[in-house]
């Protein structure tokens, strides 16, 4: 009943019963109180004496009543007790019959009384506050939600189109998206997924461009074939160092469009990789004397140092 109070989380209790009609006027209350006091003072000894007398005479009275009710030497059906029982049986019959009538009459009376009383009671109390204080609303709501499918109810009863339109009317969706959504990263992701640069490249490279690209790539394959062949004939173990470290691909910026700094790093990486690869291979085969290899590397490094300078 008082779960809300037990939890201790509810708001401080406020009186929920509204004050009713004013009491008796003071000029009546004074004499009334005096009269009541007097009665109590007088009545208390009288009641005490009476109780003592009753206690004293009760056993005697009980025996006397028993003797009168069933006097000796009198046939049982002629005793006062028998008469009393006969009267009681008759009275019981009447009472049972009367009770039913009384219930009917009582029901009618309740129909009249309860609405009136209830109305008065409800006038006197703040029912909302009472419910808030005394009822565990969370439990009730929880139970209700357990029983019903809220989604289904919303879908059935709520005009979602109007709700959404109303919400959209009130907010600036563009502004919201701009402030809340990381458009740049999404765009980047999409571009990564669809490989947009490749699509643009394909669409801007004509058939002639494709032929030229193919020719160049086939020539490069030819280069590699010849290189491998020559390296094999010369019993060369170390890989070629073809990266022109320090070569700038940004130079013809003004003539053929800018591609600033895109490959410089890559060329350096390739040069380092080739150097490492070549050293590793030489190390594996041991076909070059250490001194010669060291001198070779030093010469290469010097050359590269110069090109960087």
């Amino acid at each position, binding site marked *: 009943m008082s779960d809300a109070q037990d939890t201790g989380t509810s708001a401080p209790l406020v009186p929920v019963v509204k004050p009713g009609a004013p009491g008796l006027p003071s000029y009546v209350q004074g004499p009334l109180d005096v009269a009541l006091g007097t009665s109590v003072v007088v009545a208390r000894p009288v009641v005490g004496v009476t109780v003592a007398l009753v206690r004293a005479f009760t056993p005697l009275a009980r025996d006397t009543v028993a003797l009168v009710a069933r006097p000796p030497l009198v046939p049982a059906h002629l005793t006062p007790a028998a008469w009393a029982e006969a009267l009681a049986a008759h009275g019981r019959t009447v009472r049972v019959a009367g009770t039913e009538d009384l219930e009917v009459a009582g029901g009618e009376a309740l129909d009249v009384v309860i609405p009136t009383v209830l109305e008065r009671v409800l006038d006197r109390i703040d029912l909302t506050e009472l419910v808030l204080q005394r009822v565990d609303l969370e439990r009730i709501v929880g139970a209700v939600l357990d029983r019903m499918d809220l989604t289904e109810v919303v879908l059935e009863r709520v005009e979602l189109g109007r709700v959404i339109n109303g919400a959209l009317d009130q907010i600036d969706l563009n502004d919201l998206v701009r402030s809340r959504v990381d458009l740049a990263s999404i765009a980047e992701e999409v571009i990564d997924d669809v490989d947009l640069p490749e699509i643009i490249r394909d669409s801007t490279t004509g058939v002639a461009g494709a032929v030229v690209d193919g020719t160049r790539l086939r020539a490069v394959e030819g*280069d590699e074939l010849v290189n491998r062949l020559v390296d094999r004939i010369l019993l060369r173990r170390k890989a070629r160092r073809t990266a*022109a470290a320090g070569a700038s691909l940004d130079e013809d910026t003004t003539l053929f469009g800018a*591609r600033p700094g*895109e*490959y410089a790093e890559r060329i350096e990486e390739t040069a380092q990789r080739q150097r490492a690869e070549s050293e590793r291979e030489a190390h594996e085969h041991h076909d070059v004397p250490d001194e010669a290899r060291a001198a070779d590397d030093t010469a290469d490094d010097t050359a590269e140092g110069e*090109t960087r300078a």
Partner: protein
Amino acid sequence: MPEHPVVRRPDPIPPAARPLQGLRAGVVSRTIAGGIDYAIITAVVFGTYIAIVVVRFLVDPRSAGELPTVPLAIALVYGFALMVLYLWAAFATTGRTIGDRVMGLRVVGRKGTRMRWWGAFVRAVFCTAFPIGLFWCAVSRENRSVQDIVLRTSVIHHWPVPPVVDSLSDVDQRSAL
């Protein structure tokens, strides 16, 4: 707006060729490029001869029956000079002859940058006088021809990028103007 906005450029170079950029080219690519250049110079030499014939005919129509004879030495010297001029201009300006441009090659100097005028001239003369030196790049461990070794130059893969594609990546900059 940052000074250099990060714009994803559509790379006009196909993925297979991207790792090649900046590497020294091999003998096959360079021979094809050189062949194209030789074809161009030869065409110009023959074109000059035809032009001479036409001019001669216009000046003297009676000479139509016989073709003029040009001494081979003069033709060779003319071709040599033409080749030197052509290569000199190409090496010193863009680093690409027409053949290099077709094959996506570029000649760079000692520091990996464009050659100087005098260096370009020496290389042009060297290449014209000793074309066979090109084939040393098949043997060289660094893909360098004789001219490259002597003058410390390199011929690298550097595919030319059409400017129209590049302008696509400048949309932001253009719209900011």
